[in-house]
């Protein structure tokens, strides 16, 4: 899909504008609706103010003596200059690095991040060679984040789109309030993962802690290892051929495909016994979801 200009957006209806900006416009019917990956979505960098960057133009930023604010301003300055590949060096656990990037970009973080790393992003592909602290990828809208080591708690909290991948293990409350997108964990996840999940998919190749999927509204959780316990209203469902196909595709894409395939994954969905908003007006439903 081609980019649209600010002027064109202003002429559109709300529905057209939402579609042009890559947002889902599905009607909430109380049934699960999933948006498959759209190859054309890679061209949806439609923010009128987005920088025109070249992936082959690469630069490094040594973050050692910079504050988080200075680093994040430097990223924007480099994008303004057309750099499409930016490498952050020596992050050493700094918080909030690379947040709020609404642009196509290859961001490589050589080392580990602290809290709220690359949250609120829409578009960039991020690779982190170290570990991340709490709330990595929180509220991300699109793009990919791949972490080579472990991650802290509330991994991908409230994320809406894109792929968030941790090759190691993650902390507790992974994907809390997840509203879309895909979370993939190569190792284990802690307690209350998928708590109040509303949409999207979570894949855990290892074990899951207690109260998995507690109070989830919708969405799917796939666990390759053991589940310590299920949360309230989370139930096991049958793994379909479509699930197997999707799991194989996603796990292969990120080099996390188990040798024994995907048949051993357990699928967890909402039992929907806690749903009590079907009597609401459509506008109220939108507020909830």
């Amino acid at each position, binding site marked *: 899909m081609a980019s649209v200009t600010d002027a064109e957006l202003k002429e559109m209806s709300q529905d057209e504008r939402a579609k042009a900006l890559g947002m889902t416009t599905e009607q909430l019917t109380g049934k699960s609706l999933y948006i498959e990956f759209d190859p054309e979505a890679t061209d949806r960098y439609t923010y009128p103010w987005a920088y025109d960057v070249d992936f082959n133009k690469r630069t490094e930023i040594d973050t050692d003596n910079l504050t988080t604010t200075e680093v994040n301003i430097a990223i924007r300055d480099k994008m303004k200059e057309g750099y499409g590949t930016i490498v952050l060096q020596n992050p050493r656990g700094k918080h909030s690095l690379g947040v709020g990037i609404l642009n196509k970009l290859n961001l490589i973080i050589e080392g580990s991040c602290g809290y709220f790393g690359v949250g609120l992003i829409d578009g960039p592909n991020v690779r982190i060679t170290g570990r991340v602290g709490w709330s990595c990828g929180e509220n991300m809208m699109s793009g990919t984040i791949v972490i080579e080591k472990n991650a802290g708690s509330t991994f991908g909290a409230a994320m809406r789109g894109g792929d968030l991948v941790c090759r190691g293990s993650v902390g507790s409350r992974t994907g809390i309030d997840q509203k879309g997108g895909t979370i993939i964990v190569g190792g284990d996840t*802690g307690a209350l993962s998928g708590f109040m999940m509303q949409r999207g998919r979570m894949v855990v190749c290892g074990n899951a802690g207690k109260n998995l999927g507690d109070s989830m509204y919708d969405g799917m959780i796939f666990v390759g290892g053991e589940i310590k316990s299920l949360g309230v209203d989370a139930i096991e469902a049958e793994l379909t051929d479509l699930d197997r196909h999707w799991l194989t595709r996603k796990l292969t894409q990120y080099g996390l495909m188990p040798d024994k395939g995907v048949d051993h994954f357990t699928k967890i969905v909402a039992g929907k016994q806690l749903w009590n908003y079907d009597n609401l007006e459509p506008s109220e439903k939108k507020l909830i979801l």
Partner: protein
Amino acid sequence: MCGIAGLIHKGKSANVGSEMTAMLQALKHRGPDSTGYAVYGEPKDGDYIMRLKVAEAEDMAKGRGITQILETRIREVEEIMAECGATVKDRQSATKYAHRYVLGHDGDEASIGEMAKMIEEIDGVEILSIGRGLELIKDLGDASVVAGLYGLNDFVGTHGIGHTRMATESDVDIKSAHPYWAFPYNDVSVVHNGQITNYWIMRREMERKGHRFMSNCDSELLAVYTAHNLANGISLEDSLRKSIGEIDGVFTYLVATKDQLGMAKDTMAAKPLVLYESDDLIAMASEEVAIRAILPEEIDTYDPYDEEVRVWQA
């Protein structure tokens, strides 16, 4: 919010004073009100080290009369020490209200405990710690301020725990700052990040069993609780496990003894802790940025899960 940190060197001593300062300074944003250390040095000649305060920092603004009050309190403290058979080998004073004594004493731990109880009967006096290796220092301000005031950057030892406090449910003063000594048990200290929701129930239970509380800070309960368990022959690891079932709330806390460092995380894993383990050093903190302050190279770290308990030996 509060920040906690701890480290333990296996089989060797290092400059834990400056290491803890670097870690706690990196956690300043989690709690700028006060900073505290419990660091463990090599015991010397069987001596005891006592850290005490004879006033709060804010008392110093009360005019000329306070100096005389403090001198009286110190004289009374030293009279009790002499009465109880303790020999003052050295006394250092970082401030007018904070003092460090090196004491010779031939009695057992129980007699040292009795002496501690008598000293604390003096109005305004609080013993921060007694031990053969433990030195507990806490004061208002960030780590660089406290380390500078108490000369901590040269402290050599095997392990330590520390705390940066954001006062939420009690005052900004030294008695509410962490770490807490597990009165009256030598060399046991605690730091905590979280909120204990059955504090008053547990406190009354501990008070009925004869334990003393010096503040209204919920974290002090963990020190008293640990002391109670150790006194009843429960191991540190078992005490930590027991606490997860008996203490309500959200918490992550660290306990140090003369040769051990332990951690426990509540059933919800609601409070953070990042762990680094190597063959000769274990370091942990509320945030990785604190560990990176002493280990800037790329390392592997992880978050312990809910109800996780670990104990390491120096």
